[in-house]
């Protein structure tokens, strides 16, 4: 191969080795420094060993989050220095309007302020309300992402629990089933996103299967990729493919870990299947359910590849993560993108906090928690 190809790899490789040596040096340096300051050997060693993470944490988390907050108050397009504009980005993002409708069918452009687009329409009897926003791409994506998370997380968990219960029965080849159901989760998201776009295209497999049934009712096959009302449905269907496997593996391990004596005790008390499920399985499984809930919630709010490969009609919005990515790196509005990212951060943290708060009511930790 020619030198051009080597040039592509070699500098990175050299820097990689240098950084690796630097990391080892950092560990050694921090150790020596602490020893000089009279720290016990054990404490000095422990602290020195976690230094690689601490440094990465400071640069890529603490500093980056701080910088992101600062940028969210600026106008910055990479070419000029960031210009401080105070809350302008946020003011623009929260430029919302809620106006009443005279009739349920009224076009929202007649009532909404100039440059505002419809986000949500609420019909009450003959009239209703319409929520409009200036940054409609952002709010439409917010709408889609939240609908997606609220529907797929509980349904995905319930499905995974059902599947785990099935696999926990006396069946042949549990291992093989487990491998099979986890399969979608290992496939590259890029590959599956493309596959879904193909399957849901106008003459794709899904419509091929639906056509005979729809013909009976004289209905046309749905335009999955271009009909804005179908966009959330499409993504929800797609999510079910992968979500069962990932959660099921963990729930199944949890089920296998439930001591059989508990069921035997329940049998003696004359408990039926439902009572056993309700009073033994669910409480014993609740830590695993809780873990899955947190992980799938965070995952659902951060879908990326699917959005990058399956374009949606403008009115439907797309996934928030992709909208923000585009705002930053396609339109180069670093300030606005940072403000959007911060709103997303607050929503993710808020929802996660909510789950954590609720956990004391329903998550059951058996006795003193093991682990250390």
């Amino acid at each position, binding site marked *: 191969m020619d030198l051009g190809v080597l040039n592509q790899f070699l500098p990175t490789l050299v820097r990689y080795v240098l950084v690796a040596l630097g990391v080892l040096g950092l560990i050694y340096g921090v150790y020596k420094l602490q020893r000089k300051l009279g720290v016990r050997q054990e404490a000095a060693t422990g602290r020195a060993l976690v230094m690689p993470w601490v440094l990465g944490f400071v640069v890529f988390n603490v500093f980056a989050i701080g910088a992101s907050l600062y940028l969210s108050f600026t106008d910055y397009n990479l070419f000029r220095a960031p210009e401080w504009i105070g809350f302008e980005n946020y003011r623009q993002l929260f430029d919302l309007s809620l106006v009443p409708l005279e009739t349920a069918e009224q076009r929202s452009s007649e009532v909404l302020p100039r440059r505002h687009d419809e986000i949500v329409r609420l019909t009450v009897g003959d009239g209703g309300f319409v929520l409009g926003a200036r940054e409609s791409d952002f709010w439409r994506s917010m709408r889609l992402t939240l609908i997606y998370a609220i529907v797929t997380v509980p349904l995905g968990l319930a499905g995974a629990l059902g599947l785990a219960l099935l696999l926990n029965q006396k*069946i042949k080849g549990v291992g093989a089933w487990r491998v*099979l159901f986890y399969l979608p989760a290992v496939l*590259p998201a890029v*590959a599956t996103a493309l596959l879904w776009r193909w399957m849901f295209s106008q003459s794709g497999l899904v419509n091929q299967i639906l056509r005979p049934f729809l013909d009976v009712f004289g209905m046309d096959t749905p335009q999955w990729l271009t009909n804005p009302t179908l966009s959330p449905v499409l993504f929800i269907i797609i999510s079910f*493919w992968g979500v069962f496997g990932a959660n099921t593996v963990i729930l199944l391990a949890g089920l*296998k870990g439930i001591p059989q004596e508990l069921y035997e005790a329940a049998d003696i008390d004359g408990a039926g299947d439902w009572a056993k499920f309700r009073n033994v399985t669910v409480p014993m499984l609740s830590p695993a359910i809780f*873990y899955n809930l947190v992980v799938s919630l965070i995952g659902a709010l951060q879908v990326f590849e699917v959005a990058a490969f399956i374009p949606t009609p403008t009115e439907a919005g797309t996934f928030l993560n992709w909208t923000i990515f585009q705002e930053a790196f396609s339109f180069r509005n670093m300030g606005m993108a*940072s403000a959007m990212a911060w709103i997303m951060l607050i929503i993710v943290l808020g929802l996660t906090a909510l789950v954590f708060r609720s956990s004391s009511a329903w998550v059951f930790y058996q006795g003193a928690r093991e682990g250390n």
Partner: protein
Amino acid sequence: MNSTVAQPTLKPLHEPGPSQRGFQVRRIIIYALLGLGAALVLIPFFWMISTSLKTEDQLFRPGLNLIPNPAMPGNYVEVWSRLSSINESMTFWRIMANTLFITILAMFGEIMSAAIVAYGFARFKWRGRDILFALMLATVMIPGIVTRVPGFLIWRSLGLLDTYDPLTWPSLFAWGPLYVFLIRQFFLSIPREIEEAAIIDGANTMQIFIYIMLPLIRPILLAIAVLSFQGNWNNFQGPLLYLSTPEKFPLALAMRFFDQSLSKEAPQWQYMMAMATMMAAPILAIYFLAQKQFLDGINVGAVKG
């Protein structure tokens, strides 16, 4: 895990008795549901492979044509000559080399740094340890997009955009908290006496780590290697953000590049799916070979979570 414990209660079900018929019905329902689930998992998967072997006029033929006739394994070669006709440096070997370069460096960094950091968290007592560990786990909740813009600006000011640097050596700073967590859990299960014996023999911390601890935690390191390989091989957002020259693209970006080069009216799905299958193949091979590591790796974290 506790499959031996599960045996006693299940035994009576096999004894012939009045419940035998109900038991049979139950079994049929269970297998029917599992079979349905399996079909839902496998049909899209087979559809990907099936499409990749079709001719263009087979693509839109009505009805279910799961088995292509004639089959076109040549699509797998043709897709690369199409791609290199758009950009001559985008050959199969080049794109594979790019993907492997990123994947292997990032994987090695992730494993080694996670093992070292986990050792510090698991085996030594020091003030602030538990708070720092909780903080590390909490970072999982921060959406990646928040740190993307500043991250991009950092790499830009270092002049390292469009290089592999942002995708490789930051892994040396234990960027995957989950891996640290998993290894720490494993360390905690190793009896302390082993180290104490080594200390008495005069081994220092580095020697203990390299010669005693690393071999002991091999199972979890293997599990993490598998998860990390998958994660980096499949990574799309990072390369999309940092790489802009097509000849530097890994597979995930090459797929996007090819996808965007095709007109929306004539998407050549047979080639796209051939590429998708190729990208999935190594992951699938590892998955089937190392399924135990894979699935156990996911479990360790949750069971004690």
